[in-house]
């Protein structure tokens, strides 16, 4: 989240889409209800089904699953057409005025410039800004708005870039926004195709309903008003598509256009689906990240210096503007991370042990791991805190892959579908005997039996204390992992090996090496001074061994250590700040500055400098987050300023300090995304129609499919005509609670939600057993016949959607008692992923439905 859960209470209008917070985040949803109760905030819900969230919304629109970019593109078009935009914000805080290089082409035929059909990828060099003084445009203009500084005329410098494409240090721009290649003009042209009529054709939302929703959401910028704010709330209903990243991009662009980012009650807010999924992401649960979102080294990075050169961005901005470009500190974060990893073995002379880090040569995403196992390349799996088979996609492929593995280790608190993959439906007793995979089950501990931190959706680190001791032989995760590690290290010590150094030199200085306390780990993640570190400007020194108060203290000379720079400041000499429980909220904005600790530096709303106008005054005097104090010559406020504290407004430093440009990206240049600098609507991998925008290029050209015999894809021609989506229920938690009688009582059996009309067509009554079949597998459950999904007209065709909760499988109270069907929802979902984030497309695929 750019903002936070409690901050939702500050909003004036909510667009909830790709998420069902009332269902999946009922406790956080109280703040949405609070906004309705206290501010008369309006709630718009857009979903393939009338959900529990829709039940309390002011407006509900039923959208075809996967058509979100068409809807958001239509919103952008509407805001531009009706001038419901935040002009001063747009000109000064975003790259709307930046001029894009000649040669960039919009995807009016379905392809951006630079597409290479042979490699199915883009040469992205034309997706770049024009350097100031490079000829074709006049840099700067008289079209200046607000109190911003007047840019100077054409500026020398910048010039052509090096061989590797990079952004020009001095960007050509036009504050009148009128240059035909200004981002603003390209944006207008890009979404001119997303008319209300086109939105209706693609999404199935009638034009009049769409216009009502667009009017309501953008009404906050009616007549140039800047006081009100709107928030966008989403979850995996957006991410789990083959264009998920681009849906979220579209939302971010809409919010920049409306001036909602950085502001109380605004922002782009991802609701995380597990209690600590944010924490897992922060410490690099993904193969292409290191902790703190540092980019992993690749084989091309020959040494530490070349790695740093590649991943440390250089400021790229109009000459007269300022950009903090906070990622320019990357080497400090990286060296401090390597010191945390390898201790004294990380020295300047050996490039801080850069060679110890694995070099990522290709994609190792979730779906890819399973593909590799299915192909016999991955020989074993250790699954902690997840049910790999049930998660899917294409569960049967995962089950078949496990049959080929040498070993499987599952650490969980229940027997589940993965540890018991050898008794999946369809496997006979004889077959089971022939499965050679060695399966180990480790006695894990439940969440209430462990201490440590959860990082919530709002980036708040909150410590939790052990509630009950571990039962029987159950062990804490850190004990299990440490004991495995220490054994492996012993083996390396005794037997050597190809490259034992990274294992032997791993820093493991915990008081109890085979069961480290998590407070000790948390302190290491925060970081400490290794020698005395001085901040000359502040006149302060941190003594060797002291916990660092924040990441501004991190150094690239080996004098500091920090396991995860974004958490630096969470466990200081004052103690574990995530353990704080002071509920006071002096500003009334839900900031609660002394409750837990949020990264970065306890800022509750990211980019909060954008809550002020160019001169540093809050847009809304009733919701003051931070502001420029002329007397003190610094930024102060109720929240911690997410900004260079002493940068005066006249310097025109951009509020988006993590972007090299300093401003928000309406156009995302170069390497930011592999599938386009603007979101374009593409059909899901399995879709009932050809893309009305460009039928010849229906799907995203860079989305790749898998190619084993198990990777089958359905089309309407093959009889798969029903759009299917998947989701969770309030009553259950993933594949876990089917072992808990309380949850089983509330929802005892799997079901499929089916529109009345489709059920009538097929002669299905509520409670009948039905069979759902995709190109990959069949799923059996009972029918829930409902008014809450209605038939849709998509591009002139009548289309039905159905929905399936994910929670059931072949192990659980009801399953074990033989009272339910035993199929897995994700046996239906396809092996297709988002090309940026590698998230599988669980939310929209094709099936056929019949009475079983």
């Amino acid at each position, binding site marked *: 989240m750019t903002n936070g859960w409690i901050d939702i209470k500050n909003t004036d209008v909510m667009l909830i889409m790709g998420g069902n917070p*009332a*269902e999946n985040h*009922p*406790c956080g*949803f*109280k703040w949405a*209800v*609070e906004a*309705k*109760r206290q501010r*008369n905030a309006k709630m718009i819900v857009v979903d393939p089904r*009338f959900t*529990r*969230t*829709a*039940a*309390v919304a*002011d407006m*509900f629109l039923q959208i075809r699953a996967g058509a979100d970019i068409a809807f958001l593109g239509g919103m952008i078009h509407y805001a531009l057409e009706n001038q419901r935009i935040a002009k001063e914000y747009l000109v000064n805080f975003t790259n709307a005025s930046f001029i894009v290089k000649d040669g960039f082409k919009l995807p009016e035929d379905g392809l951006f410039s630079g597409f290479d059909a042979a490699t199915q990828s883009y040469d992205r060099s034309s997706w770049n800004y024009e350097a100031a003084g490079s000829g074709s445009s006049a840099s700067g203009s008289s079209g200046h708005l607000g109190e911003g500084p007047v840019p100077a005329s054409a500026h020398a410098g910048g010039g052509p870039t090096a061989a590797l494409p990079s952004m020009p240090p001095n960007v050509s721009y036009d504050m009148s926004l009128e240059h035909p290649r200004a981002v603003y003009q390209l944006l207008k042209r890009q979404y001119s195709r997303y008319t209300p009529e086109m939105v209706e054709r693609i999404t199935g939302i009638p034009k009049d309903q769409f216009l009502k929703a667009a009017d309501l959401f953008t009404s906050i910028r009616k007549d140039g008003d800047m006081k009100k704010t709107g928030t966008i709330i989403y979850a995996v209903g957006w991410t789990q598509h083959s264009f998920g990243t681009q849906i979220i991009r579209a939302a971010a662009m809409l919010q920049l256009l409306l001036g909602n980012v950085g502001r109380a009650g605004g922002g782009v807010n991802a609701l995380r689906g597990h209690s600590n999924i944010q924490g897992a992401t922060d410490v690099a649960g993904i193969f292409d990240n290191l902790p703190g979102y540092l980019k992993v080294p690749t084989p091309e990075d020959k040494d530490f210096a070349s790695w740093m050169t590649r991943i440390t961005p250089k400021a790229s901005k109009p000459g007269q503007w300022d950009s903090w470009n906070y990622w320019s500190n990357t080497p400090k974060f990286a060296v401090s991370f390597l010191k945390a990893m390898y201790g004294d073995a990380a020295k300047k002379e050996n490039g801080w042990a850069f060679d110890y880090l694995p070099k990522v040569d290709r994609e190792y995403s979730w779906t890819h791991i399973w593909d590799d196992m299915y192909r016999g390349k991955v020989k074993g799996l250790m699954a902690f805190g997840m049910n790999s088979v049930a998660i899917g996609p294409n569960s049967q492929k995962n089950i078949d892959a496990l049959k080929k593995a040498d070993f499987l280790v599952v650490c969980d608190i229940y027997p589940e579908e993965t540890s018991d993959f050898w008794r999946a439906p369809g496997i006979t007793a004889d077959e089971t005997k022939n499965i050679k995979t060695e399966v180990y089950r480790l006695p894990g501990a439940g969440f209430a039996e462990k201490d440590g931190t959860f990082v919530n959706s709002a980036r708040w680190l909150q410590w939790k204390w052990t509630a009950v001791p571990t039962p029987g032989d159950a062990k804490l995760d850190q004990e299990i992992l440490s004991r495995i590690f220490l054994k492996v290290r012993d083996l390396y010590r005794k037997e050597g090996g190809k490259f034992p150094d990274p294992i032997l030199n791993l820093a493991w200085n915990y008081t109890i090496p085979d069961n480290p306390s998590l407070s000790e780990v948390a302190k290491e993640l925060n970081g400490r001074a290794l020698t005395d570190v001085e901040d000359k400007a502040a006149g302060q020194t941190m003594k060797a061994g002291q916990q660092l108060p924040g990441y501004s203290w991190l150094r690239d000379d080996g004098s500091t250590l920090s396991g995860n720079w974004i958490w630096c400041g969470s466990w200081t000499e004052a103690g574990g700040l995530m353990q704080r429980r002071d509920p006071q909220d002096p500003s009334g904005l839900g900031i609660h500055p002394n409750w837990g600790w949020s990264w970065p530096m306890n800022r509750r709303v990211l980019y909060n400098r954008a809550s002020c106008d160019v001169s540093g005054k809050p847009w809304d005097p009733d919701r003051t987050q931070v502001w420029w104090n002329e007397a003190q010559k610094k930024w102060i406020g109720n929240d911690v300023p997410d900004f260079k504290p002493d940068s005066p407004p006249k310097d025109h430093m951009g509020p988006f300090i993590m972007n090299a440009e300093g401003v928000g990206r309406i156009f995302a240049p170069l390497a930011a995304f592999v599938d386009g600098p603007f979101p374009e609507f593409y059909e899901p991998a399995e879709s009932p129609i050809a893309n009305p925008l460009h039928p010849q290029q229906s799907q995203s050209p860079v989305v790749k499919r898998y190619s084993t015999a198990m990777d089958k894809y359905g089309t309407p021609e093959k009889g798969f005509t029903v759009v299917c989506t998947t989701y969770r229920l*309030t*009553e259950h938690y993933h594949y876990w609670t089917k072992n808990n*009688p*309380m949850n*089983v*009582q*509330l*929802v*005892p*059996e799997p*079901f499929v939600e089916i529109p009345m009309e489709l059920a009538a067509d097929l002669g299905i009554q*509520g*409670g009948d057993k039905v069979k759902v079949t995709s190109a990959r597998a069949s799923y059996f459950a*009972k*029918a*829930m*016949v*409902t*008014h*809450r999904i209605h038939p849709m007209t998509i591009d002139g065709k009548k289309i039905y959607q159905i929905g399936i909760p994910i929670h059931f499988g072949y192990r659980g109270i009801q399953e074990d008692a033989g009272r339910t069907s035993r199929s897995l929802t994700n046996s239906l979902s396809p092996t297709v992923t988002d090309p940026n984030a590698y998230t599988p497309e669980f939310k929209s695929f094709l099936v056929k439905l019949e009475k079983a």
Partner: protein
Amino acid sequence: MSNGTLQIKAISGHAGPVPGLDTSRDYDVCKLIDVTTCIGCKACEVACLEWNGYPFRETVFDNTYQTMPDLEWNYYNLIRFNEHVADNGTLSWLMRKDQCMHCADPGCLRACPADGAIVQYTNGIVDFQQEYCIGCQYCVSGCPFNIPKFNHETKKVHKCTLCSDRVGAGLEPACIKACPTGCLHFGSKDDMKDLAEGRAKQLREHTAHINAGVYDPPGVGGTHVMYVLHDIDHPEAYGGLPKNPQIPLLVRLWKRPLKWLGNLAMAAGVLGVFVHYLRYGPKEAEEIDAKRNSDSD
């Protein structure tokens, strides 16, 4: 709230004055259910079960999100899910927390013939005292909301106690504590009334729910559980909430205007026995023994 709020105000089947009546301040408690912010998460259902110590049960899928078709003797609190299509085609998904309404004029109490089986505290809570329950189920017919449920094994009737044990100790009912959205409120009847009317007004003025209103039906003297409804004119749409609940005519007649008739009948019965005695004399011991022997066959 102190235990003083659990002073008894009315007692079922009890002749004469209520012991201790009017000795404590009359402080009416009330639960307010703002149906317009209920998300049907069922946290209240689980909290109710856990607080009352009832077991989880087997249920069967029934084409709905609703846990089961109706309340049961050991399931006091049920969210009723109803898909409602209005005349103009607008769909709403209504979720109403159903439980005892704790009527100010409780039909169950009026109907109950067992001394002390149903009591009404001065704070408004209507509570069943199972140790005095005779299992006649008159309370079931006396309730216009179809709430009391009979346990066929113990022959006792049960229903929501408004957590009188918690309230007496100064706590809110378990369902209130569990509610994540704040759709449930608890306080004095006056405060809840203000809150409810304010919310209904807000809904009428700022949302599409121009018929929003407060459900506090006068037919039962008002209730200590109130609803804010999107549409006060159609309470039936919320899973059979009666529009104008009344204590059944028979119960009302029986317990008030015609009570003399019952008393008369009772007196007539006693008189009959006396006359019978005078006419036929006492029952012979032999006869009784003979009957016992035949019973044991």
